C-alpha cells in the first residue's frame, strides 16, 4: 500500500530580485518592487511530500523524526532568518521562489534517503505558491 505524506514547515527570509545580466532599467521593469536594493522579506511555508509503501511494522512511510530532523538541519537552519542573496547558491542565481523551490528539492534529493521525494511546494505569500517535482509533471 503506497501512501503520500506531506509535512509543512515555516521560515522567514529576505531577498532582492536582481539579475546581473540585466541593465538597471531592465531589472526595475522585470522585478518591480522586488528589485529594491535593500531587499524585503517573506514568511515562507514549505510543504515536503514523500511517498512509499507503508511499513506495516511501524505503520509509517518514514519516521517523521528523520524528516523533521533533516529539514531542520539542512533547510531551516540555512534559510530561516537569512538574507537569501548572501548565500552561496544565490551568488549567481536570482533568489526567486522558483529557484528556491528547486534548491530545496535538490537538498532533499541529495541527502534524504528514508522515502521517495515526490515534490516540494513553497508558498511565498498566502497568494502565491510554487511546486517542483524534480522537473517531472505533478502526478496527482
Amino acid at each position, binding site marked *: 500500500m503506497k501512501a*503520500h505524506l*506531506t509535512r509543512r514547515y515555516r521560515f522567514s527570509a529576505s531577498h532582492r530580485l536582481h539579475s546581473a545580466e540585466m541593465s538597471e532599467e531592465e531589472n526595475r521593469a522585470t522585478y518591480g518592487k522586488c528589485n529594491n536594493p535593500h531587499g524585503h522579506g517573506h514568511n515562507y511555508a514549505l510543504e515536503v511530500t514523500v511517498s512509499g509503501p*507503508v511499513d506495516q*511494522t*511501524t*505503520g509509517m*512511510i518514514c519516521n517523521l523524526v528523520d524528516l523533521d530532523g533533516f529539514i531542520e538541519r539542512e533547510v531551516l537552519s540555512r534559510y530561516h532568518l537569512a538574507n537569501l542573496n548572501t548565500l552561496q547558491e544565490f551568488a549567481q542565481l536570482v533568489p526567486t521562489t522558483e529557484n528556491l523551490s528547486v534548491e530545496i528539492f535538490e537538498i532533499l534529493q541529495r541527502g534524504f534517503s528514508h522515502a521517495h521525494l515526490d515534490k516540494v511546494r513553497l508558498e511565498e505569500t498566502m497568494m502565491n505558491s510554487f511546486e517542483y517535482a524534480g522537473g517531472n509533471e505533478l502526478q*496527482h
Partner: protein
Amino acid sequence: MVYLTRKAEFSASHYYHNPDFTPEENQRIFGKCNNPHGHGHNYTLEVTVKGEVDPRSGFVVDLKQLKEVMHHEVLDAMDHRFLNKEVPEFFTRIPTTENLAIAVWQRLETKLQKARLHRVRVYETPDLFVDFYGE
C-alpha cells in the same frame, strides 16, 4: 471527468505500539507517541470522488449520499474514540495517519454509488497530512 471533494472533521485519540517490538524499540521508534494512555488530534478528512457529470442532475455524485456514507462509515466509528481500542482495523494495525488514510479508503470504497473514489486525505494536524489513492 469532474472531481469533487467533501471535508469532515473528527477528534480521536491513539498511540503507537508494536507488540513485536521490545519496550525499548517501541520507545525509540515511536517516542512520545508510544505513551499507552494515548493522546489526541483533531483530524480533518477530505474525500475526493470523480465521475462524469450526470446530464439530468448536473451532479457527479449526490453530495447528501456522500456525506451520509462518510458519517456512517467513518465519523460514527472514529469520532471521539480511542482508535487502538475501539476501531477494529487498529486492533492489529498501528493507527498512524498513513494507516488511517488506508482504513478510510477501505471503508468508503465499496459504499459509494456512481462516483469512484479518487483520493483520501487525512490531516492529523494542519502541518501533516497523508494522501492515499488506493495504490
